[in-house]
């Protein structure tokens, strides 16, 4: 390891417990590792297993990551209104939010906000909100220009069941028309 400058990417994902926040971070992290990056992921949550806030802080870097704390996120994924409010100031880059969960969006930086209707799409396409996190991950992959194939591979490794639906959900997010540059 060296103390030389190193580009680091900070990603912050937060929402309620049970929304698959940690799973999303895990897949993202593993995909980065498969491509030879170094990754840290801090996860923090309230004491309750379901319902409280859950946060995953990922740092991806080509070299050893010193501080694992996300202080200025390049991407912030907000799955809930409290999470959006709590961590808005920790982000200086893009904010992906689920408009069904986060209704009041701050006025500043409209160009940074990207609405991904993950919950709504999950309900429509799969009749199950549990797939919202994969739709969001697909969208994040597109938006951040990450390797889609690596993401799919990592997803299959991390998630034990329902591979076909999850792949389909990932695809829904990745091919979201609003995100594809004209």
């Amino acid at each position, binding site marked *: *390891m*060296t*103390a*030389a*400058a*190193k580009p*680091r990417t900070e990603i912050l994902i937060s929402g309620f417990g049970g929304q698959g926040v940690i799973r999303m*971070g*895990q897949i993202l*992290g*593993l995909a980065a*590792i*498969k491509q030879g*990056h*170094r*990754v*840290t*992921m*801090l*996860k*923090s*949550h309230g*004491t309750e297993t379901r319902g409280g806030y859950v946060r995953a802080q990922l740092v991806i870097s080509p070299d*050893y*990551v*010193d*501080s*694992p*704390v996300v*202080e200025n996120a390049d991407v912030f994924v907000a799955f809930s209104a409290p999470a959006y409010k709590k961590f808005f100031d920790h982000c200086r880059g893009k904010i992906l939010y689920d408009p069904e969960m986060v209704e009041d969006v701050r006025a500043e930086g409209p160009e940074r906000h990207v609405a991904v209707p993950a919950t709504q799409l999950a309900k429509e396409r799969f009749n199950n909100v549990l797939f919202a996190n994969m739709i969001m991950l697909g969208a994040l992959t597109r938006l951040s220009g990450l390797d889609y194939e690596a993401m799919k591979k990592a997803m299959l490794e991390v998630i034990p069941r329902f591979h076909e639906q999850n792949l389909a959900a990932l695809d829904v997010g990745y091919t979201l028309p609003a995100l594809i540059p004209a």
Partner: protein
Amino acid sequence: MSTLAPAVSEQLVAPWVEWARRYTRGRRLLEAGTYALTEGAIAAGCRVFAGYPITPATDIAEYMSKRLPQVGGYYVQCEDELAGMHACAGASLGGLKAMTATSGPGYTLMHDAYGWSITNEIPLVVVDAMRVGPISGITGAPGQGEFYIARYASHGGNFETIVLSPSSVQEAFWLTIDAFNLAERFRTPVTILTDQVISDMWEDLFIPEDYDALDFVVPRKNNLMMPFYPVGSADLDVPPNVIGHGTGVCVSAYTHTEEGYDIEEMEAQWAQTYRLINKIRHHRDQLTRYETVGVEDADVIAVAYGANARTVKTGVLEARRRGVRAGFVRLITLWPFPDELFERDVPYVVCELNYDGQLVREVMRSAPDGKKVRFMGKSAELHTVAEVAAGLEGVARTGRIPELPYIWTEVR
């Protein structure tokens, strides 16, 4: 995030620097610190885990319950931590390498067994995943409150302890093997003092593919003869006596003779104490592990260990970017305390996760001028990069740490 003009010297002094260079075939995973601690133990030949679940060390117990039967080992979920560490000591006496894992509230319960294991020179490893206190505190927040408890891990005095602290998931893996090696070599319990952040954090982790091929793992050797140890000798290579081979081993809680018989004579007490203390003090060169950044030319040096060292190191680099010649010392071996790392007569800024100030007192003692040692204590949360940089800048320019919210600077 930062661009450094001149190259800064960096040094990591630890045996796993070489290990990592030699063993490159394996798997790369995204795993938690608890997983790394477990796999490290399995790789080191640990075959017994006895303990009691406690957050944030619980996952170690869970991983162990899955892994140990696969390698012919035993997972025992005990009635309490007292039983846990005693059962580990028993298993180690019977010839199996053993480990237990706990957090602060359980660690204090283990002191009884810790002292027994020290006195009887039983090798084993104890993981303490520190969380913020006092007492039960917050289960999901890091703390560094057991720095001194780990040193004085039992009553009665007259012993030295070995305490190591990892600051990444990868390091937790190698360091656990190292802890087992030191336990075997020095015939004593070794504490791995980690914290909630490192144990819960997920990070890229390299695991070598074949544990049996790791030639640096110190194997368990059995001393199949009396006496228990050669009296007055510092011969460390006397391997542990093992119960169950009919050698007439005596393992006693009391001060004992070289045969292990309890005795109430001062000469025996002195001989035992001499051995227990000096087998560690006289071999500090084999025990000190640390990391430094730019200490040679530094005007101010930040000191930290564990998870906290991660943000402190980034803070040091940030201070450098702002034109402050800052250095960084990360302790990996906490005890025996590496006094020699604090030889330069410059201000030291000690960042630790408590408000009472523990590590800072040792730095004050070993630095040439204790009055120049500054304290930045924070509770339940890692220092931010901004805080550390501001602190170092303040000390370098004005000799004082600026007022920062939630940072305590007073040491009484």
